[in-house]
């Protein structure tokens, strides 16, 4: 095992994950690390499906800051975010066997599940509160504003932030309103006074630009 790998293994698991996702696939040791870590989350999830509490703890540690941070950005309330994150991980514990590696990465599976619950919660709260001021016209904040420095390796965050900054304002706004404020694309078009076709194409173009910029498969 080479030195890079050894160093990575000595880090807490979540940093290994972030570090590994950051590494460019240049055909050397680094690429191996990326694959290894990907396999790790898959393996953990498989062990969680067998009701292995240690694997669950490792999976939680590896993903909690991403999951909680995303949920908190959608819900904008500490208590709701904590409850929803708890529900998300209990659901992972119960349904890990339904994860199919062929349909995407383990991290994408977790975050999709978490985002679904966060959006359901924000819509339920909005319905309940008739869009009170907490969820109403909050000014859009950029993701970087919420970041706690210690959590994610700086370079990974910077890379993502740079890619977000590379979007046009309208692309970024469409993605923000839909993904982080839980709006439907119809609501986004109302909010922005833009027609539906425009909103759909800005979302699609924005996602494609992000995907290219981040080098996602």
């Amino acid at each position: 095992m080479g030195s890079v790998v050894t160093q990575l293994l000595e880090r807490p698991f979540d940093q290994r994950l972030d570090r590994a996702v950051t590494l460019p696939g240049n055909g050397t040791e680094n690429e191996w690390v990326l694959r290894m870590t990907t396999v790790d989350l898959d393996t953990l999830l498989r062990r969680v499906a067998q009701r292995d509490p240690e694997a669950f703890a490792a999976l939680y540690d590896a993903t909690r800051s991403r999951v909680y941070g995303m949920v908190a950005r959608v819900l904008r309330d500490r208590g709701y975010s904590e409850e929803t994150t708890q529900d998300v991980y209990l659901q992972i514990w119960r349904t890990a066997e339904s994860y199919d590696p062929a349909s995407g990465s383990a991290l994408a599976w977790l975050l999709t599940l978490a985002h679904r619950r966060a959006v359901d919660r924000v819509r339920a709260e909005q319905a309940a509160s008739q869009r009170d001021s907490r969820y109403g016209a909050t000014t859009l904040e950029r993701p970087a504003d919420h970041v706690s420095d210690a959590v994610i390796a700086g370079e990974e965050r910077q890379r993502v932030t740079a890619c977000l900054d590379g979007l046009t304002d309208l692309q970024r706004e469409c993605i923000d309103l839909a993904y982080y404020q839980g709006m439907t694309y119809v609501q986004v078009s109302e909010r922005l006074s833009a027609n539906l076709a425009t909103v759909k194409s800005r979302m699609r173009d924005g996602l494609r630009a992000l995907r290219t910029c981040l080098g996602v498969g």
Partner: protein
Amino acid sequence: MTHSQVPDPELLDLAVPYALHALSDSERNALEGRLAAAGLAMADAFYDEVRAVRETMAVVSAASAEEPPVELRGRLLSAVANDNVRSLRPSKRRRTAWMSVAAALAVGLITVGIGVSLRPSAQAPSTAEQVFAASDVHTISGAIPAGGTATVVFSRNRNAGVLVMNDVPPPSPGTVYQMWLVGDSGPISAGTMDAKAVAPSTTAVLTELGSSKKLRFTVEPGSGSTQPTGQIIAELPLI
């Protein structure tokens, strides 16, 4: 790649909103119907796009990463450490099963007698077990001003919930804590807890949630009241 003959390009335009959960329930259902009718090639193209969006947003999550409160880890780990629901055989030891599920919520479970229906049935999975297994399970927790916390895990589909109280100070002598499910038609008693039942950790099963919107806690004289008369010490919204 080979999408030159795509029959319904408009359908493909909805892949991004679909992947971002930016469709209403009815829009999503309608879309899934159209997809089923559009054939395999279209569905493949659609879900490829959905996958790519979700992988991208998984990477983007680095930008919003934030540490959750530390207590959450302990709560989750004790929940799963005690959750052996799935490994139970169907007919044996239901009481143990119920206790394990209850313990899944409480950091430490102390069995207590409280005036709430705890009815582990010999035949069916216990209420707590059903709540845990429900697809719409939700958790609400709140601090009780006098001290301690109350957490309710509940399922509307199952019409039931499990209440866990930790470190709540006992009621004054001669009084009990009483729980009320509050709906449009007013509060309905959901049981009482006396000093013995309260500390340091209590679990109780709540059945018949009905259309209740809140779980309210009051202090009541003697062994409880038919309608709340005393001070409200806490309320948890059941949404």
